[in-house]
Structure formats: structure tokens, C-alpha cells
């Protein structure tokens, strides 16, 4: 049996250089880096585009006997004071409204049509004596501002009824009450709501990153093996190096190229995140929204890095073995289909797990080698994991890698010499020679 190195290293180096020098790689990386930068800057962009700018609402008071401090009450309803309990849905935190008293309703309607005002609210009284409201503006049922204005108008009307019933200072009724949440899992209590949102976002990002790496770079491995086979350079390779060296070199080289692309994208995104703070202060004032990077700690980075690499190496070996069984590159997609399915199943299961990170099945899957790369980082971010669990899962992953790589090398050694229509896994297995 020959050692893995240095041949695996030479093969990896060739694979890496050919990959990163290719035009497709350069173009794709540049595009993805731009996308990463764009996504990181998107919150700032939305503010610039006015999604976060105060809504200007014209108010016409046509009621003969308006309640005292009409505009103040309305404004209080529309822009509730920041307090605990606001994350329960209700009024969106970032929306705020500027009320503009209007004396000329005709001109104001034109302003709404021309976009100078976002809406026009006319306050009158019905024959029953209650306040009555007319709203002119965007009336789409999903409009957040319409819902907010309606809710604030309701408050104003109730307050008006109370005043007429003789209650003093009815606005005190609407002061937010205290509302404390005690979590079922005592450890979850460490985090406040904003941190939970950030953790959720971070876990989502990690799952997506892992999934994309496995799918994209796994396919690179399969395609590259199939290319060597269809271009018949394989016979020279297999005489010069052992299947294990070829397999390891291919996986390492592709992984390095994939990481290069990832680092370029993440670097661009990071630049965007760093820039978005000063940018948003400069453009609109105020700090940025909660960033998924808030939950990144050193342990999370280490665990994610280990499981990300481990998962890639595990899946890539299978992809290489599958790639070795096809004769033409066109058949690669068909051959890797089942493996893609495994990856997708893990991905969707991980998405389900995002909302139930403490359940038993998530616990179990975080130890299964093909799923651990999704589930272990996810649990670390969203739930509680002991270091022992992480180490155990990592050991299982390493064992899985060793087993899968030696099986894959066996399939590979036979697969690369088989040229035919579509050798089934059984034909390949029968042809597989004893490992060298």
C-alpha cells in the first residue's frame, strides 16, 4: 500500500490551479462576490429607497368637536414607544409616521396622487356621535401602513368614546403593560429576542452555506472525475498513482478551490456588513438592523469550520466514486442524482430543525455523519450542546469519512476502467479490485 502523500498533494495542486485559473471559476466567483456584497448592503439600500423613511400622512380634521390632542394620540398610536413585548407582531418596529395637518383637502388629495403624501386621513363624526375615518391612499390588503393607520384610528375612537363617557386622561389606558416571558428551556433565557433572531439568521446562513458547498463542489468533483475518464487521461493517472491518492487529491484540490470561492464571497459580504454601519448612519442615520454575524463566536466558527470541511470531504468522496462510474460527462447528473437527494433531504430537515432545535430527532441526526454537518452547527447556535457531544459527533464523522473514502476508492479503482453504457453499482462492485 502506498502512502497518500506526496502524490495526493500533487494531484490536489493540479486540480486547484486548473480550477481557479479557469474562466468559468473567475467569472462565477466575481458574480457571487458581488451578490454577497449586495446582500450585505441590501438593508442600507432599502432605507435609501425609502422603505424605512417616515410615512407622511395628511390629516384633515373635519369633525366639529374633535377630541383633545387628536394628532398627539394618533401619532402615539402609530409610533408606539419602544418597549418590551413589541416583537409579538403588531406594529412593525421600523415603520414610523409623520402626521401633517392639512387645511386644503383637495390639494392634499393631489399630493397623495403625486406621491408627496403617503395617504390622507379625514376625521369626522358619524350621526351616532362616534368618530368616523376616511382613508385615501394605498389600499392593498397587505399594506402595513393601512393596518397601522386603522389600528391607530381605532385607538383614537375608543379614547374619544371614553372621554365622552367621562374618563379623564384616557390615553393612559394605552400605555404598554409589563409582559415577561419565561422560556421552557432555561438556557434559552440567556438570550433576548434580538439575539434569538440573530441566532436564527446565523443558523440559517450556516445551513445554506453547507448545503451549497456540498452540492456545488460535490458536483465539481464528480464532473472532474468524469472528465478525466472521458478524456482518457485516467489510464495514465491510475498507472501513476493509487486510487486512494487520486481520490484524496481530487477532494482536497476541489475543496481548496471551493473554499477560495467561499472566502471571496464571504470576504465581500463582510466588507458589506462592515460598510453598512457607517453607510446607513451617513445616509439615513441610526444603526443597522440586527446582523446574522452578531452570534458568531470562536467556538461557533471552529465547530462550523470542522463540520463544514468534514461534510464536504464525506460527500465529495461519494461524488468522486459516482463520477468514476460514468463514461460520458453528460451522464454525471443522472448518476449523482441519488446523492443530491440525500443532500437535499438533509437541507430540508435542517430547515425544519431551525424551528425545533431541541427536539429528539434533531439530536439524533446531529450524530449521523451525512447529516451532522448540517445539524451540529445548527444545534450549537440555536440550542445547547455539550463539548462531549461535539467531539463524539466529530469522531463519528471522521469514522464515516474513513469508511466512505475506502469504499469510494474501491469503486473508483474499478469504475475508472469501465467504459460502457451505464455500469450499475453491482457491476462496479464486482469489478472492484482488492485495495492496494
Amino acid at each position, binding site marked *: 500500500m502506498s502512502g497518500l502523500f506526496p502524490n495526493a498533494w*500533487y494531484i490536489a495542486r493540479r486540480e486547484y490551479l486548473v480550477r481557479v485559473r479557469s474562466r468559468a471559476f473567475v467569472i462565477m466567483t466575481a458574480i457571487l462576490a458581488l451578490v454577497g456584497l449586495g446582500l450585505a448592503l441590501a438593508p442600507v439600500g432599502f432605507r435609501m429607497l425609502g422603505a424605512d423613511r417616515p410615512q407622511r400622512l395628511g390629516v384633515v380634521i373635519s369633525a366639529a368637536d374633535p377630541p383633545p390632542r387628536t394628532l398627539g394620540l394618533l401619532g402615539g398610536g402609530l409610533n408606539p414607544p419602544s418597549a418590551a413585548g413589541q416583537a409579538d407582531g403588531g406594529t412593525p418596529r421600523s415603520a414610523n409616521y409623520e402626521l401633517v395637518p392639512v387645511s386644503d383637502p383637495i390639494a392634499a388629495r393631489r399630493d397623495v396622487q403625486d406621491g408627496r403624501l403617503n395617504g390622507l386621513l379625514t376625521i369626522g363624526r358619524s350621526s351616532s356621535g362616534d368618530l368616523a375615518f376616511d382613508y385615501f391612499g394605498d389600499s392593498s390588503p397587505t399594506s402595513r401602513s393601512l393596518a397601522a393607520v386603522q389600528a391607530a384610528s381605532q385607538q383614537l375612537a375608543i379614547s374619544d368614546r371614553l372621554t365622552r363617557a367621562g374618563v379623564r386622561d384616557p390615553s393612559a389606558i394605552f400605555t404598554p403593560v409589563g409582559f415577561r416571558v419565561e422560556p421552557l428551556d432555561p438556557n434559552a433565557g440567556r438570550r433576548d429576542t434580538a439575539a434569538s433572531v440573530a441566532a436564527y439568521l446565523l443558523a440559517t446562513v450556516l445551513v445554506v452555506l453547507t448545503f451549497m458547498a456540498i452540492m456545488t463542489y460535490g458536483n465539481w468533483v464528480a464532473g472532474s472525475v468524469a472528465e*478525466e475518464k472521458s478524456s482518457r487521461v485516467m*489510464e495514465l493517472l491510475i*498507472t*501513476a498513482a493509487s486510487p486512494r491518492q487520486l481520490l484524496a487529491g481530487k477532494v482536497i484540490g476541489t475543496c481548496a478551490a471551493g473554499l477560495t470561492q467561499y472566502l471571496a464571497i464571504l470576504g465581500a459580504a463582510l466588507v458589506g456588513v462592515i460598510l453598512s454601519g457607517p453607510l446607513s448612519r451617513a445616509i439615513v442615520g441610526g444603526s443597522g438592523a440586527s446582523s446574522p454575524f452578531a452570534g458568531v463566536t470562536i467556538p461557533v466558527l471552529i465547530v462550523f469550520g470542522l463540520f463544514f470541511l468534514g461534510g464536504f470531504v464525506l460527500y465529495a468522496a461519494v461524488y468522486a466514486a459516482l463520477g468514476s462510474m460514468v463514461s460520458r460527462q453528460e451522464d454525471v447528473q443522472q448518476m449523482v442524482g441519488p446523492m443530491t437527494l440525500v443532500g437535499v433531504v438533509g437541507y430540508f430537515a435542517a430547515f425544519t430543525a431551525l424551528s425545533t432545535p431541541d427536539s429528539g430527532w434533531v439530536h439524533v441526526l446531529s450524530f449521523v455523519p451525512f447529516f451532522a454537518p448540517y445539524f451540529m452547527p445548527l444545534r450549537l447556535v440555536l440550542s445547547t450542546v455539550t463539548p462531549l457531544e461535539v467531539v463524539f459527533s466529530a469522531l463519528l464523522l471522521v469514522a464515516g469519512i474513513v469508511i466512505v473514502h475506502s469504499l469510494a476508492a474501491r469503486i473508483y479503482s474499478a469504475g475508472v476502467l469501465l467504459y460502457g453504457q451505464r455500469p450499475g453499482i453491482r457491476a462496479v462492485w464486482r*469489478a472492484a479490485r482488492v485495495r492496494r
Partner: protein
Amino acid sequence: MGGTGREAPDHGMSLVVDHISKRFGTILALDDATFTVEPGRIFGLLGANGAGKTTSMRIVLDILRPDSGTVTWEGRPNTALPRRTWGYLPEERGLYLRMRVAEVLRFFASLYGVSSADASGEVDAWLERFRIADYLNRKVEELSKGNQQKIQFIASILHDPQVLIMDEPFSGLDPVNVQLLKEAFLAMRDRGKTLIFSTHQMETVEELCESIAILDRGRVVVSGAVRDVKRAMGRQVVRLAVDGDGTGWVEQIPGVQLTRRGEDYLELHVASGSDPEEVLRAALARGDRVTRFEIADPSLEEIFIEHVGRRAEEPERHLAEVATAPDTGAQDR
């Protein structure tokens, strides 16, 4: 090139393919094949397509394991030998098309443990010999098929292997390049290398090989030194041209058979035990003027046909059939 009186081969130092069998699904690619290649010689592996030549080579290289039988070189089993013992030129030509010639050659040299510094001198010398020195920094895909084949040959010998195994090395080359490659073979032989190549071009074998094995349907039908193989045929060939009319008299001579009527000569087989000169004497006795009389060993072509039952160029079975045959993913060339 027949025997030049070398001493008896030392089988302990030879490449010995000993009772190898290999089955792919329903096809028996090699059936108890046995042959010996003496060190420092050029050995021809002959056979039609599908006879088992490529499978034999892959088994010698240990990229395929036989179902039974062993391969030894210098007394050691091939499974225990380092990869750099062998230099292999596969029949199917393939290189990394988008890499430069120098890069590809450096890469393959590095896999065999040869540093780029050591490789580059050798590379320059070989490119020079093959008259493609200008192509060092070209991309492989810019080269013609013939030139790619030469690069592949160089890639297979940069690590100075003891045994060169070349599968149909001359196919697809123009006459000039065939000549260059033949000269390269002889140069390697003169360096003490052992060469094994497969072909179905008998003239090349006659020109280069000291010994051969003929494969048919996975079986070795004959093997050994070319001279011995020819002797074992037990007959000689006579080419005769006479001025007289009629040819019937020729076959009256005992042990003589007319095998071919050439443009201006006759080709005769003379069985062992008969004297070829009997033909000459008979012709002179008839009073014909003899313009050509030549005694020769039978050609390899004839030997091949005798043993296999058809010419080497006629495929025994189609590759496509083998490749798509049910219950097999393998093919054998």
C-alpha cells in the same frame, strides 16, 4: 531481428505472466494466459481486437487484478513492485487538454517522484528527438493528435521505468512519426529497458520484436522468440519466378504447396522434411529459366493466420457488443 545467439534467458529476471485468467461478466477476457518477456528485449503482443491484449497489460500493471494466476518481474510479484517500475502508454490517448505541455509532463513526472528539475532536461531531449521542441509552452489542445501521442509517450517514460508497456503505440501515427517512435523504442532498448507493445501490424513486429505472444480469445496460442516461433511452424517459404508456362508441376513435388500466385512469382510452402532446393532442381530440370529463387521463414502474418484463423486486422468481435453486453460493464481491447 530474430535470435542473435544470446545466452539462454534467466527466467528469474524476466517478466513472467503465469497462468492468468480474467473474466468480465460472461466474457472470458484471459484464459490461462502464460508468456515470458526477457529483460532488455522488445516483445510483441499480437492479437485481434478483443483478444485480451489490453487486459493482459492492465494486469501486468496491477491496475486490474486477475481472477487467478500471477505476474512476476525479476522474481517479485507485480503487486509488491513500485509503480515507477512501469511506463504505460494506454491505447486510448488522453491528456489534460487545457494544460501546457510542460505542465502536464511535470505533473506526471511528479507523480512518479521525479522533481521538475530532473524532468526538464529529459523533457527537452525528448521533445528535440521528436521534433516538437517548440511546443513546450503550448496548450496540449493546440497540438495535433500525433504530437499529443508523442507527449503521452514522453509522459510515460520520464521516470525512467524498467519496463515500458505500450498499447498500440503506432496506431494513428503518420509514417514519419512511426519511424521516430520506432527509433525511440530502439533507443530505450539500448538503454537496457524492456519493451512490450501490442499491435496488429505484423510488419512492425517483424522489424522490432525479438519475441512475441499471439493471443486469440484470451488464450496464448503461441509465444517465444520470433525465430523459434517461425521454426516451429515446421515449413519454409519459397518464392520462385520462372520463364516457363504452367504451374501444375510445382505441386507434383512432394511436400510442396502453392500458396500464392504473385504478379510475376509463385509463393510455395515447403513442409519440414522436404528440401526447398528440390523446387529449384525441378525447375531447372524442366529447362525453365529461373529468375528468382528465395528461401524464407514464414512471415508473422502467415503464422498469425495459421494460429488464429484470420488476419489480425479483422476484429473478432465488436467492442460495442462487449461494452453493452448484459451483465458486464467491462470491455477489453
